[in-house]
């Protein structure tokens, strides 16, 4: 039977039924030839998704780049008004969670269910810690009337607290701090949203890991989620200096 005619004249379905004779891992979808093909497709797909995420944050980063150059003084003052220690702690927490996530991937690869669960749980905890600190920060901003919108108040920037070496801004420049806070809330907000989605997925993974599927060769979901989590971490690695550390003194 020539190759070409195989394509044209499929054998009858009855014959086909006996086709799947060679062994496939339990997690291999029917439309992939091998588990390896499936793994590489999934990982490539995840990367493409992260590509879209780069562009999604990219628009915000560009807006930041533009306005920081336009209203540098406002950006400096506004940046100095947010709590740098909280940001630093959050950076450490998030990098830590990235590390535990990487270790979770490793645990799945070496098929250690116990370790996998521990590291996933650690990632969840650190994720929550990040969000907790973040919401503390948001609360401060809210109390200080630094949230853009109707209740926004530039008083703190025009009349800085005596005793600090903060430079007083003129009113027109102080008004521009609202742009900084718009971007601050948009960027950290979208980032936090990614964290929340990530934590939800993590909890799901933790739940399903009980059955041991991820530690019997099906590393792919853990690995792909790891990619996502590390990406969120990278975004924060950029957000931290850009938002918290403009000309600190």
């Amino acid at each position, binding site marked *: *039977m*020539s*190759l*070409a*005619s*195989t*394509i*044209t*004249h*499929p*054998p009858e*379905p009855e014959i*086909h039924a006996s*086709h799947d004779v060679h062994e496939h891992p339990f997690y291999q*979808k*029917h*439309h*992939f*030839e091998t588990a390896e*093909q499936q793994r*590489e*497709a*999934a990982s*490539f*797909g995840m990367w*493409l*998704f992260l*590509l*879209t*995420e780069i*562009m*999604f*944050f*990219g*628009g*915000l980063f*560009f*807006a930041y780049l*533009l*306005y920081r150059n*336009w*209203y540098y003084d406002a950006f400096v003052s506004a940046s100095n008004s947010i709590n740098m220690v909280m940001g630093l702690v959050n950076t450490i927490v998030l990098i830590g969670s990235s590390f535990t996530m990487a270790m979770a991937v490793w645990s799945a690869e070496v098929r250690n269910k116990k370790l996998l669960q521990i590291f996933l749980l650690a990632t969840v905890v650190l994720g929550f810690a990040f969000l907790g600190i973040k919401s503390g920060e948001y609360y401060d901003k809210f109390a200080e009337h630094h*949230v*853009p*919108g*109707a209740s*926004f108040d530039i008083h703190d920037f025009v009349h800085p607290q005596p005793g600090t070496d903060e430079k007083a801004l003129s009113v027109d420049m102080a*008004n*521009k701090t*609202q*742009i900084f*806070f*718009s*971007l601050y*809330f*948009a960027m950290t907000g*979208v980032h936090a949203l990614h964290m929340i989605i990530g934590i939800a997925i993590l909890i799901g993974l933790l739940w399903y890991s009980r059955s041991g599927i991820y530690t019997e060769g099906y590393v792919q979901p853990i690995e792909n989620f790891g990619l996502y989590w590390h990406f969120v971490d990278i975004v924060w690695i950029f957000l931290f200096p850009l938002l918290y550390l403009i000309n600190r003194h």
Partner: protein
Amino acid sequence: MSTIVSLPDQTTAALPKRTYINNEHGILSWLLTADHKRIAMLYLVSITFFFFVGGFFAGMVRLELLTPAGDLMAADTYNKMFTMHGIVMIFLFLVPSVPATLGNFLIPIMIGAKDLAFPKINLLSWYLYMIGGIFVLTTLVLGGVDTGWTFTTPLSTHYLNTHVVTTATAIFIAGFSSIFTGLNFIVTIHRMRAPGMTWFRLPLFVWSNYAASVLMVLGTPVLAIAIVLVALERTIGIGVFDPTKGGDPLLFQHLFWFYSHPAVYIMILPGFGVISEVISTFSRKRVFGYTAVAFSSVAIAVFGFFVWAHHMFIMGVSNYSALVFSLLTMLVAVPSAIKIFNWSFTMQKGSITFETPMLYAFGFIGLFTIGGLTGVFLGALGMDVMLTETYFVVAHFHFVMVGGMLMAFLAGIHFWWPKLTGRMYPESVSKLAAIITFVGFILTFFPQFVVGYLGMPRRYHAYPPEFQVLNVLSTAGATVLGVGYMLPLLYLAWSLKYGAIAGNNPWQATGLEWQIQSPPLTENFLETPIVDHEAYDYEWLERKTERELQYVG
């Protein structure tokens, strides 16, 4: 007139016993399917629905413009009409049209795969599309939106009381549908090709969808974030685009057009792919300059990201950057010219027949040539000053999108209808529809070039009386066009039951999709096919047919 159609003997022919259509039954088997062919059919039904919704708004717009006075509807109603027309047609019809229906159905088969790489994400993207569509319909029920499809800030953020946020949500969600479709295609084309199916054996349809997918994946998120910022500005009052707070409204334009210019290539590139397939098949000849056509798709995708500011020449971008963007715009016109000539020369020394898809393809080439060249008018800086924001732009855009894309979509639907359904459409009435569409199109949109140069601005509810004659012609043409689009809806529905049985390969075409039964099996191929021939290798097809005859005989 001779034809290449070779149908099985209708007295004995029957549809295959087992197909993707009758594999499972019941509404749930469709709504929960992971089969790319079924999802393609879901898309086909839904985009057809939204096409006619959008068409209805277009009809209302044309009807209002029949008379110079704004007498049929109030100004804000009219504004809602053209806004809904734009949003529905662009985000719910043009962007998903060819990729999500024909692309979804055919790309896995053309490359010899059993399905797309991520069947569930494929289904998810249809659901996202539908949710986006439902949000648009919700907007309609709530009272509409009148931002224009471009969402110009600060108009959309501060000066309108309509349902901007609902619409923004719709576009955000529909955008993710298109991201997932593109992502799925890219992974599938990279990772799922059958043995021997090298990049330069891929049908050009796959190449052009690949290029469009890259644009979807990289461009759409930028629109998404721009639209999120618009929604936040409306609801919370952040000030990123607000000039009174120090924001730059042009920043929105940059972000918006960074997607929306490549978006027109998202819309047209898959159409190019359809035309390559159709012209080759009905000329019985390999596409002239295969590599040139393939690379011109990629070139359009790459250059497409460098030209967006040509939508902003008079909007206050610096004149120096206008210069750069105009130059790059001229460069992006070249790959399209290359394609046109390659299609023409594909016919040279061919053996041409004139079935309906071929007629649509002829219409496409003619109208797209005009549409493309009038784009050069708009890319030329000084000319753009006079022409932009007038009906000239409207005419240009519709020549490319309706004359180009919609013609290509109809060509593709007719061409692959036998594969999709296993039955032929009725040939003579479909030819009539193709001709009606062409005539109606010219009548509708050609006068708009003239009225545009006279200075009639777009999005005008009422206009000076001296423009009336040209507008009357345009509205008359729109009526003809409407008939031209209703006809296929009717006879294609008819053919589902009464059409002739098509057999595997009615057109004697070379693509892998034509080598399997129609409609295909759920798993497409029983054995992973092994590809040992170039795309459009009609000699291979002949040898294969001979061998089969011997084998059967």
